[in-house]
């Protein structure tokens, strides 16, 4: 793969866009209902695949979704992009892969969003991704920046496998720090201190991987200005994943094995014992 894209200290919100462009440079960009959701179709190795990214669009019809947030249009548009693939490969023995490039600062916070049902829009993309995985499509997520809260639920969290770039810009959390501080009646400094003791509360990638959700952290030579070798390396990791994935393994159960997820395992074990039948 030849990356002709030049980079100059990518802003965090542009990393998704950069990686989408870099990884799909030999692919065909497909029509999308909105400029904030981009779709490209092509091949990784021998595997047919569709890439999807959510990126900033200064002209977004919905003003609260102009900075790369997953809003009303984004939720339904992702759903459309994924459902197209499900319908297309309905009768195919080998299902086309779907790769979500994740750099989403948050869901869209706004009055129009609540009034017109952003929860339903995000449910649409969750539903589409989950259906794709359950139907045997390999679904991968590549975390290239922020993977926050409802936005991550809607774009990436239903994947068979989650990969992450080894970049401090990659952050996973349930809520932005300022809002989390207000809701929990703490200061941001107090939140940071708690996070150092309590891995699920931390924003950094290392803590997140201890929960068992990440398949692999991909090292880069240059996090802010990735070169051709970095791009080829990421592309290879994704290609290998598609080649090795077991299409019959459609569940999320691999994720329960994290060192900091003991309670999730014991709850399931006890439930099974008590279930009866």
């Amino acid at each position, binding site marked *: 793969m030849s990356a002709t894209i030049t980079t100059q200290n990518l802003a965090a919100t542009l990393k998704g866009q950069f990686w989408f462009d870099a990884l799909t440079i030999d692919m065909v960009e497909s029509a999308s*209902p909105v400029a904030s959701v981009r779709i490209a179709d092509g091949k990784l190795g021998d595997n047919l695949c569709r890439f999807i990214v959510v990126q900033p669009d200064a002209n977004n*019809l*919905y003003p*609260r979704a102009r900075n790369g947030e997953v809003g009303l*249009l984004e939720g*339904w*548009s992702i759903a*459309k992009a994924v459902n197209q693939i499900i319908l297309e490969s309905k009768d195919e023995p080998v299902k086309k892969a779907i790769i979500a490039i994740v750099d989403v600062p948050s*869901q869209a*916070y*706004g*009055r*129009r*969003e*609540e*009034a*017109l*049902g952003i*929860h*339903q*829009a*995000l*449910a*649409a993309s*969750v*539903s589409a991704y*989950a*259906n794709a995985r*359950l139907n045997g499509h390999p679904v991968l997520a590549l975390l290239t920046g922020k993977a926050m*809260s*409802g936005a991550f*639920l*809607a774009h990436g*969290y*239903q994947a068979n496998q989650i990969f992450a770039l080894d970049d401090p810009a990659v952050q996973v*959390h*349930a*809520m932005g720090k300022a*809002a*989390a501080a*207000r*809701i929990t009646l703490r200061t941001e400094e107090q939140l940071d201190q708690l996070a150092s003791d*309590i*891995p*699920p*509360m931390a924003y950094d990638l290392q*803590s997140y991987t201890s*929960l068992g*959700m990440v398949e692999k952290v991909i090292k880069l030579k240059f996090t802010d200005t990735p070169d051709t070798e970095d791009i080829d390396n990421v592309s290879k990791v994704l290609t290998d994943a598609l080649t090795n994935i077991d299409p019959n393994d459609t569940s*999320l159960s691999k994720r329960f094995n994290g060192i*900091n997820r*003991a*309670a*999730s395992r014991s*709850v399931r074990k*006890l*439930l099974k014992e008590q*279930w*009866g*039948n």
Partner: protein
Amino acid sequence: MTNMNDQKIAPSFIELNARKRIFELLDNESMKELLSPFERLTSPWLEKQGIVPQFDDGVVVAKGEIDNKPVIIAAIDGSFQGGSMGEVGGAKIAGSLELAIEDNRRGIPTAAVLLLETGGVRLQEANLGLAAIAEIHSAIVELRRYQPVIALVTGPVGCFGGMSITAALCSYLLITREGRLGLNGPQVIEQEAGIREYDSRDRPFIWSITGGQQRHAIGMVDSFLDDDISFIKHSVIEHLALGIPQEFRSDAIDSSLSRLLSVDTTAQLDADITRKIMTQGVPL
């Protein structure tokens, strides 16, 4: 105060705690609680933060029957940490739904009922709450292929955050006047977008946007219920009997997209404008 002894006022469902709600919905003597408080399976994260855990982690799950049909039923206790989803409570719901899927694969037609009173992720367990919610989503999308998964939002907490997505994935969604449904809590929107966008103290405004009556008027729920135990139970039975819907609400992609793309976003909207937008053209 309970209205149980007043013949003129119907017994309230909302005033019941999570365990009692389940008891009332299930057929007589069919309730079998799983991971009851006697197991003392508490959150491994709360005590480290100076918060007293609860022995059921704020989630009650039980097997039983409704109208002689096997169900798994989960009720979130809105009075413990705002009904927030932590690792244990989340795993109780996700794990039960996963076992219901296994039942169906073996020919046992277990359906599910979820009583959602929740602010969403428990921020003290942030990423594990979020992960559990993703697993609940996955299980619902799979289970609803076999049997109805019914969400019931009665209040007083309402259903927010990632759990509002949960509600929106269900086969059927039932709500009362006292129930609210929305992705982002009012305080968070105000924090992120400013008071002019969303005034979290303006309660009539908040209810006009996310309250049960409005959600019913714009077609985002299947049924709008009075707070009356027998009425609610009857509605759950009715929706279980409906079986799998022709189209899941979460899959109405083209109609939703064309509607949202035609909205005039130069002016702000209110409850009335929302109703006009949402009821014009093709129904959801």
